[in-house]
C-alpha cells in the first residue's frame, strides 16, 4: 500500500492511499472516515439500504468486541470475516473496542487485553488475539494495546508508562507472530500510540512505534468530551510530528465535526463514523451545513426552519438512550420535538439521500413517537450520507484552498 500526499495545508494532509486490500487495487481518500459497523453490519442497515447511501467509504470498521466470539465459527468458515458478513468487496479495519461503548477499566494485564461483547468479557493473550485475526483476515487491524489510561481519571505516570511499555511489547509479539503466518502477512498491523496525557510518554510511544514495521498508526486515548480534546490538541500535534509522512494516522473516539477539523489540522487522516450513529440513536438528524460556497443567508434558507431550531438548540438536553449517554449537539435537530409534527420538509433541503428524497420530518417524527424500527433505518441513511458528505467537503475545501471558510462555517455552528 502507498500513501501519496497531494498537498499539505495548515497541517492538513490531502491525499490518497493506493494499492489497498488483498487484490491491491483499492484506493482511499484522506482525510476520510471509515464505515461504522456493529457485528459486521452497518447499524440498522441491510445491504440494500446501505447501497442507497452515496459516498460510503471504501473501508469499514469492524470491532473485535463484537466479533471475537465468532472466532470458532470463522475458523471453521475459513474464508474470512469480509465474506462472512456479506461485504467481500469492502476494505476492512478491525479495531479492538467499539467507540460507542465505554470499556470498563481494570482488565488489561501484562499478558492480556479484554474486550467486551454483548455476551460478556473476552480475554485475549497475544497468541489468542493473533489467532482471531488469522480467522478474521481483515485488511488492517489495530494491534493489541493497553488503552485503559483513557478510561481512568487522572492516571498516574507509572500507569501511563506501563500502557506504553505494554503496548510496545504486545506490538513486538504480534509482529513476530505475523512473520510466522502467511495468512497474517496479508493483513496490515496498525500500531497504537498510547501515553495518556503525559507528553514525554506520548513522544516515546510515537517514536518507538514508528520504529516498527507497522502499516499505520492509531492515535488512542484522545477521546472524551470537547474540553478534554482541547487540552490534548497540543499532545496530538507533537505526536503526529514524530510519525512518518507516508503512513496513515487514524484516531479513535473523535466524531464531532469541529473536533474532526481540529484533528485534521494536527495531522490526522482517518476517523470513525460512530458519530452519525449516536445522533440516530437519540432520534436526531444531522443538519449542519458544510457547504462553504454558500453565503450565510442562503445557508439559512437551505436549513429551512432553522431559526426556531437555533433557539432550541441553545438548550442542551441530556438524553440517555441505550448506553449512548450523549448530549444533543448543535449539529443536529431532534425529530422527537413536537415542532416537527407537521413539518413536511425533508430533513435537509437539497440533501440527496434516500430519506430526504422520499420522506418528511413529519413522517420521521411519527416513526419516533410510535417507536417504529423504520425511524432508525431512515435516520441512519441520512446521517451517514450527511457525514460522508462532510468529509468530501473537507477534501474539496483542501483541494481549492477553502479550508478557512469551511472551518469558519463549522465553528459557527458548534455550540
Amino acid at each position, binding site marked *: 500500500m502507498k500513501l501519496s500526499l497531494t498537498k499539505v495545508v495548515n497541517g492538513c494532509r490531502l491525499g490518497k492511499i493506493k494499492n489497498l486490500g488483498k487484490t491491491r487495487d483499492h484506493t482511499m481518500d484522506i482525510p476520510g472516515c471509515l464505515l461504522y459497523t*456493529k*457485528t*459486521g*453490519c*452497518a*447499524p*440498522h*442497515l*441491510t*445491504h*440494500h*439500504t446501505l447501497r*442507497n447511501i452515496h459516498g460510503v467509504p471504501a473501508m469499514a470498521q469492524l470491532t473485535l468486541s*463484537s466479533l471475537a*466470539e*465468532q472466532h470458532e*465459527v470463522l475458523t*471453521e*468458515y475459513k474464508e474470512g470475516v469480509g465474506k*462472512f*458478513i*456479506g461485504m467481500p468487496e469492502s476494505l476492512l479495519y478491525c479495531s479492538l473496542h467499539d467507540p460507542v461503548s465505554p470499556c470498563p477499566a481494570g482488565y488489561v494485564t501484562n499478558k492480556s487485553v479484554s474486550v467486551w461483547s*454483548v*455476551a460478556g468479557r473476552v480475554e485475549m493473550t497475544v497468541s489468542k488475539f493473533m489467532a482471531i485475526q488469522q480467522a478474521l483476515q481483515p485488511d488492517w487491524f489495530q494491534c493489541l494495546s493497553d488503552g485503559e489510561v483513557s478510561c481512568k481519571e487522572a492516571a498516574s505516570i507509572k500507569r501511563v508508562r506501563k500502557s506504553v511499555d505494554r503496548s510496545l511489547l504486545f506490538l513486538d509479539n504480534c509482529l513476530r507472530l505475523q512473520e510466522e503466518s502467511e495468512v497474517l502477512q496479508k493483513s496490515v498491523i496498525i500500531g497504537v500510540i498510547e501515553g495518556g496525557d503525559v507528553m514525554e510518554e506520548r513522544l516515546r510511544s510515537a517514536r518507538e512505534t514508528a520504529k516498527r514495521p507497522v502499516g499505520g498508526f492509531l492515535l488512542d486515548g484522545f477521546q472524551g468530551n470537547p474540553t478534554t480534546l482541547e487540552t490534548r490538541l497540543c499532545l496530538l500535534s507533537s505526536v503526529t510530528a514524530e510519525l512518518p509522512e507516508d503512513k496513515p494516522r487514524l484516531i479513535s473516539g473523535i466524531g464531532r465535526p469541529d473536533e474532526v477539523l481540529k484533528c485534521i489540522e494536527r495531522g490526522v487522516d482517518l476517523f470513525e463514523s460512530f458519530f452519525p450513529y449516536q445522533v440516530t440513536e437519540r432520534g436526531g438528524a444531522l443538519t449542519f451545513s458544510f457547504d462553504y460556497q454558500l453565503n450565510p443567508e442562503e445557508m439559512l434558507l437551505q436549513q429551512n426552519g432553522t431559526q426556531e431550531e437555533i433557539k432550541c438548540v441553545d438548550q442542551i438536553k441530556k438524553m440517555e438512550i*441505550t448506553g449512548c449517554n450523549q448530549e444533543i449537539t448543535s449539529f443536529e435537530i431532534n425529530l422527537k420535538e413536537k415542532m416537527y*409534527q*407537521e413539518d*413536511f420538509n425533508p430533513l435537509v433541503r437539497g440533501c440527496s439521500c*434516500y430519506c430526504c428524497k*422520499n*420522506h*418528511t420530518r*413529519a*413522517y420521521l417524527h*411519527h*416513526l419516533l*413517537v*410510535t417507536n*417504529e*424500527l*423504520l425511524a*432508525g*433505518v*431512515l435516520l441512519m441513511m441520512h446521517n451517514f450520507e450527511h457525514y460522508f458528505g462532510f468529509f468530501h467537503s473537507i477534501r474539496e475545501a483542501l483541494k481549492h484552498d477553502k479550508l478557512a471558510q469551511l472551518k469558519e462555517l463549522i465553528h459557527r455552528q458548534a455550540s
Partner: protein
Amino acid sequence: MAGVATQASLESAPRIMRLVAECSRSRARAGELRLPHGTVATPVFMPVGTQATMKGITTEQLDALGCRICLGNTYHLGLRPGPELIQKANGLHGFMNWPHNLLTDSGGFQMVSLVSLSEVTEEGVRFRSPYDGSETLLSPEKSVQIQNALGSDIIMQLDDVVSSTVTGPRVEEAMYRSIRWLDRCIAAHQRPDKQNLFAIIQGGLDADLRATCLEEMTKRDVPGFAIGGLSGGESKSQFWRMVALSTSRLPKDKPRYLMGVGYATDLVVCVALGCDMFDCVFPTRTARFGSALVPTGNLQLRKKVFEKDFGPINPECTCPTCQKHSRAFLHALLHSDNTAALHHLTVHNIAYQLQLMSAVRTSIVEKRFPDFVRDFMGTMYGDPTLCPTWATDALASVGITLG
C-alpha cells in the same frame, strides 16, 4: 339511520375483480384486482404495516419484493398521527410514500384485541386511549371518515367483532349489528369512486348466523367481501367450515378477503376454498423474533444449531437476504444489538409469503393447482398424508385428495 342499501348504491359499486383462471376441481381462483393504485394479482398476501410503516423495511424494499398492496390500521393511525395530519400529507400514500395500494382495517379488530380498553354500543365502540387515557368513540361514520382521510384503496366497514371463542346471544347481536353498521358505512362513505368499501361477514362459528349474514350482506352491492370473526382461538375444524360456508355463498365475481390468515398451510387451504386475499402480522412479527419461514416450516435462527450453518435460509429463495447472507451470519447478528438482523428476516419472510402466493397463482393458471397442493403438503409435513386432519378434510370438501 339503519336500513337497506338504497337503489342508487346497488348499481354503483365497481367491479374490481377480473377472474383469470379457475381450478376445475376446487374453488381456487386466480384473478386481478383493478385498484386505484394499480393492478394486484390474486390470490394475494398483504403484509401488515400497522402504523404507516412496514416495520424496519423501506417502501423501496417492499416494492422490490413485488408487494403491490399492504395494510394500515385505522385505530392506530386515527390516534397517532391522526387523520387531519395524514390528510395534510396527501393521505396515507403520501405520508408513508407508498406508490401502490393500501387497505385499511376499520379498527374493529382492536375491539377484540384491546377488549379491556373498549366498550361496544349500537352507537359505536368507545375506546380509552392507552397513550393518554382519553376516550374516543369509533362509530361506523367516524371509521369511514378517518379512512376517507387516509385515502386507502380498500376500506373496511366497522364491524362488531366478537372473539370466535364467544358463544351465546352476543354473537347474534354482533352479527345483526354488523349489518346495520355496514349500511351506515355505505351511507357515510364520501369517496366510493376512489375507495372501495368492503363488507365483513360475521356470525362467529354458528352456521345459521353466518348464513343469515351472508344473505343480508350480499344484498348490498359493495365491491368486495371479507370473511371476519375467524382466525382467533377457534379450532381449525370449525374455522375451515365457516370459510367454506362463506365462499359458497359469496358472489364469484367479487373478491373474498379472509382476514387474519397467514400461516402457509392455512393460505393454501383457504385458496382452495375460494379465498382471494389474506393479511396477517405473523410473518413480519415472527421475523422480529428471529424466525425465518421456509417450505418445511420455520428456522429459529437464534438457536445454536445455526451457528456454523453457512448456507442461506433457503437456497431457492430469491430475496436479498438469501442472496447475500448465511444462516450463521444471521445467527450472529441476531445475538447482537444491531436491528439489521430483524430487517433481514422481515425481508425474507415477506418474500416467502409473496413467493408462495405467486407459486399458488401460477399453478392455478397452469391448471395444476391440486398437484401443487399435494407437493406443498408433502414438503411441509414430510408426506401429504401427514398433513393435519382439518386441512385434509377441508381440501377433500373441495375435491382435492392428498396421498
